[in-house]
């Protein structure tokens, strides 16, 4: 079902690149600047960041810690807004929006995957996956059905009733992926998705990302690890708040 709906979305009039089309763009950042006040000093975290994405892309943002990649992720994920510049996601001009609307965008457009999976310890895997649908107001039965479907998709059909502490790190991260997918978001946004995993499990999760991308999912992965970044089809580098195109990876 997700495949079809994504494909249908993909056929909506795709904007040709060009500034006049900004509002119809799928993902476009122009001259994004972000600075924080750190005591007396103004810390300029993001400097004139330009970034565009087409539907179905798989991008990784590679940068060392302190490079501004977390701030960039927060802005992409609509958890934070830029000081200046323009960010359009799926037709929404983000800087115009209030807190409630940002929440709605997060609910509809973005599936978050965090480094340490961030599952609620008291809830079962299935309940954890249902969580975004609760805030979207999806009825119980449909919620359950979709959560089960997603857990099956990530290969955890036999772990639905388990709580996070009964699952391995890799399984926990797969539950988190199912939770990110369940709202059928436009964009999967992953922050160091393998950071807490051993190499083998990390590779499995990366394999799953690839599959999802093959199914048409758009993915942005933030990482400091070159070896992980190379799983994406396109890599951009961020250093000291400046974003540079790093070219495609092997098979892009």
């Amino acid at each position, binding site marked *: 079902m997700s495949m079809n709906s994504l494909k249908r979305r993909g056929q909506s009039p795709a904007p040709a690149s060009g500034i006049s089309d900004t509002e119809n763009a799928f993902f476009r950042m122009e001259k994004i600047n972000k600075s924080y006040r750190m005591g007396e000093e103004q810390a300029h975290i993001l400097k004139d960041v330009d970034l565009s994405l087409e539907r179905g892309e798989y991008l990784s943002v590679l940068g060392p810690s302190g490079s501004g990649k977390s701030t960039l992720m927060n802005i992409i994920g609509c958890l934070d807004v830029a000081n200046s510049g323009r960010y359009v996601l799926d037709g929404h001009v983000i800087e115009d929006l209030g807190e409630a609307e940002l*929440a709605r965008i997060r609910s509809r457009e973005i599936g978050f995957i965090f480094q340490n999976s961030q599952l*609620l310890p*008291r809830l079962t895997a299935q309940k954890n996956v249902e*969580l975004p649908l609760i805030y979207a107001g999806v009825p119980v039965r449909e919620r359950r059905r979709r959560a089960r479907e997603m857990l099956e998709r990530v290969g955890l059909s036999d772990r639905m009733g388990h709580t996070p502490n009964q699952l391995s790190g890799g399984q926990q991260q797969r539950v988190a992926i199912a939770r990110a997918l369940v709202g059928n978001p436009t964009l999967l946004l992953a922050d160091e998705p393998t950071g807490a995993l051993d190499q083998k499990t990390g590779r499995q999760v990366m394999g799953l990302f690839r599959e999802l991308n093959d199914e048409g999912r758009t993915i942005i992965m933030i990482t400091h690890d070159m070896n992980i970044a190379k799983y994406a089809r396109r890599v951009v580098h961020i250093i000291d708040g400046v974003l540079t195109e790093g070219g495609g990876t092997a098979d892009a």
Partner: protein
Amino acid sequence: MLDSIRSTFIMLGECVRMSLANILGNRVRSFLTVLGILIGVAAVIALITTVNGFSGSLSNSFSAMGAGTLTVTVTGSDLKSGLSTDDLAEIAAMDIVDGVTPSVAFSARVSRGGSYETGISVSGKNGYYFTRNPDLLSRGRAINFTDEDNMTRVCIISPDMVEEFFYGVDPIGENLYIGSIPFTVVGLTSEEGSGNISDMMSGSPDIFIPYTTALKLNSANVVTSFTVYLAAGVDSESASDALEARLDAMFSYEEDCFEIMNMSSIEDTMQNMLNMVSALLAGIASIALIVGGIGIMNMMLTTVTERTTEIGLKKALGAIPWQIQAQFLIESFLLSVIGGALGILLGLTLSLVLSKVMGTSFVISTFAIVLGAGFSAAVGIIFGWAPARKASRLNPIDALRSA
């Protein structure tokens, strides 16, 4: 529109479930948190119910003692020291009056055979008194109108007198000497006494005789104390005014010749006092509710801090600020209402025990329950508001970072 209402309900329903899971998941902590509310509500309920039961018993005994009666004590003037039989008949004939009972009380030396007893209280009553107090007589006959007219020497005696003078003998038909005059015992009173207010105040008399006989025995011809029984449905306030006017006329408008005691006004005064006392006590008990509310607020603030990451995560997953606020508000509301419900149960149990101990009636007061429930709900919302708002305002980035 309908869809958004529906999804709001779905979300709120889930909030209730999650809140219950949180409350029940921390049973000991939740219980300690609601203890303040529990005690406050229990105190308010126990107070109101007990005071209600007490005032119910009070008004019961007042109506037994003399609802619909006016008791008149005559001090008299120089010209007129009391009321004659004709005066009493005039009062008894008033529209508002059902009947009048004169009371001629004195104490006497009572003897039979070789034994005697001094200081026995004797009360002169009329036949109407026994008609109005049918439970007074346990055996034999009452004083009747013929006795009044003929000043017969008959008496009705209490169980104490029977024990004193008639051990092993059936007293009815026997003679008993009041002073030096022989009286025939015609009836026995029951253990409880008349329950009449004037008797209640002077203690139940040991011997009843016709009031006319009593007057003659005391060489008197006027009555200085009597009770007026009002006709059904007559308001005692206005009746008291009418009676006062009539008595004023009888005493030629001289001042301070008599005093009318209105049972219902005494009862009103006592009820007012009782209400004031209960309001005061309820005020003190409500301090416990406020303290309980602060306890809930404290717990909710702790909860918000503990669950910062969870809040951040939920926000990242698309929860709108008011949804977060609703979730915490529902949690503090449920916590407080659970405490309130337990408090109502405890309060009712306490007041049931108290009513048994004090011998008052136990009436479950709907008002008290509604008050207790309302109070605890209000406390939950008022004291949960600030923590819930704090939660809803958390920045998701900071919240997630605190993990």
